């Protein structure tokens, strides 16, 4: 199992304990998770993510067998194409984008261009719907959640596009999924970090309606407990407990 939604580095709006690669590796060992895709948390809030990407690659280098760096690429900055190529050259399994934090609207053509270019290199875009519950955000944390419209627009951008959407809830997932053609739906994978289990059973309902193959394991560590998505899988109804998640 791979955790596609982890990060390292501090968060600007609250204290996060031990957001380091070595702590992450210990967590993966404890939870019997094979490997993780890792982003750089401070870079979410940097204007230019380039130096954050460099720091991320350096931080993860000693743990390269378990932790795979997912650099951020900002398509409204000059030379983003080189950043994308660098990510590919560095062996990244995907690249991260943060449209709300960068002030990029749902129909920004530069995002679509990046999605297509990344797809042509075989790199999915990792999107983050939110980092914290709306009710607890710092007064300066005003970016807002990624919108369903933004995800639909990217999924429709081209055949090569692949998206891994993290931290979405049932309502958003359903709004996006049923607003896409079957071919477009197959371009999108969802992590399960913010989907609820029993008694409302959102995860099992989504598995039954959309299909477990459209979902991947993600925790949003170090912001959230890695135990949460595992617990959700463990509490699936009996007939779903052996389903296979999608593959990245």
């Amino acid at each position, binding site marked *: 199992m791979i955790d596609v939604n982890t990060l390292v580095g501090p968060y600007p709006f609250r204290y996060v*304990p031990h957001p380091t690669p070595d702590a992450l590796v210990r967590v993966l060992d404890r939870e019997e998770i094979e490997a993780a895709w890792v982003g750089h948390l401070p870079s979410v809030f940097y204007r230019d993510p380039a130096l954050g990407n460099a720091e991320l690659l350096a931080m993860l280098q000693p743990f390269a067998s378990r932790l795979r760096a997912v650099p951020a690429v900002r398509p409204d900055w000059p030379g983003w194409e080189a950043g994308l190529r660098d990510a590919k050259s560095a062996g990244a399994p995907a690249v991260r984008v943060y449209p709300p934090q960068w002030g990029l609207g749902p129909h920004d053509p530069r995002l679509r261009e990046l999605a297509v270019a990344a797809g042509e290199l075989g790199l999915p875009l990792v999107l983050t719907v939110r980092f914290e519950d709306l009710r607890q955000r710092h007064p300066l944390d005003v970016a807002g959640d990624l919108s369903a419209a933004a995800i639909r627009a990217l999924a429709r951008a081209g055949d090569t596009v692949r998206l891994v959407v993290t931290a979405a809830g049932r309502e958003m997932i359903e709004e996006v999924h049923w607003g896409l053609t079957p071919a477009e739906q197959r371009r999108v994978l969802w992590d399960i970090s913010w989907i*609820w289990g*029993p*008694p409302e059973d959102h995860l099992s309902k989504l598995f039954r309606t959309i299909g477990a193959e459209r979902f991947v394991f993600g925790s949003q560590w170090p912001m959230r407990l890695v*135990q949460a998505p*595992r617990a*959700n899988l463990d*509490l699936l109804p009996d007939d779903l407990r052996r389903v296979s998640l999608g593959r990245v």
Partner: protein
Amino acid sequence: MTAARGAGEAPLAGPAPLIDAHAHFYHADAGRADWADVNAARFRAGERIGITYHVASVLGSYGFSSPTYFPSPADVERGNNAMLEIAQRERDRVRMFTTVNPNYTDHAVREIERCTERGAIGVKLLASRRADDPLLDPIAELAGERGLPVLHHIWQHRTREWPSQEISDGLDLARLAARHTNTTFILAHIGGGGDYMHTFRAVADVPNIYPDLSGSGVDRGMLDSAVAALGAKRLLWGCDLTMCTGLAKLRALDTIGLQTGEIEDIRWRNAVRIFPANSFERCSAEAVR
């Protein structure tokens, strides 16, 4: 509606007693066709996790005929009747809070008397009136006289008004608790939205407030900070509306350096201490220290 019991599997959270101090059930007048499925799912997950007792309430009609957080007296009664029926039918695993709306103070007092007489072991206050409002005093006083903990819905740090609720935070509840030192208050869901760090500071010096861990929030650091600020003897385990996060927090408690006794305090011993005597027959009384 009785859900299947576990088929001989070991509970995911281990065999030790476990009390969910913050649970809810639905009923036919709750405005949703799948109400029985949701109740069954709570029992299914409870059996799988290893929950010994669900201490639960029904929140009126959940918005169907009056607002969830401002239930009419008629909906309060209908909901409490449904909860009484569930608690009596599921006697070996369900206990009940009496839900009241303090804006109807006399009705609230009568409901507490009526439901306690039939086995309720606590009082549930929603967000119908700010926690420090004097209208809550007769309810808090009666609860104290009867030894009934008051579970109060809390927004962790209110910085403005929000729609659909008259929210209270830790400071509001602390003012009520300071006026009723013989009453035990359960501060709802530190993972239920808002800034729990504010809550810990607000109630640290108010020993008759016991925060519960429930809510969808699973922030890393939340449990560690709660224990550091309040100690394990002030915390209650619970799920509220998301049992997956409840199980995740139980597993996380095993990783933050607590002693076995501290984990047991949070899992069940504190609940046994604060609820009326003999409320939980399946939890060993002599193990409570």
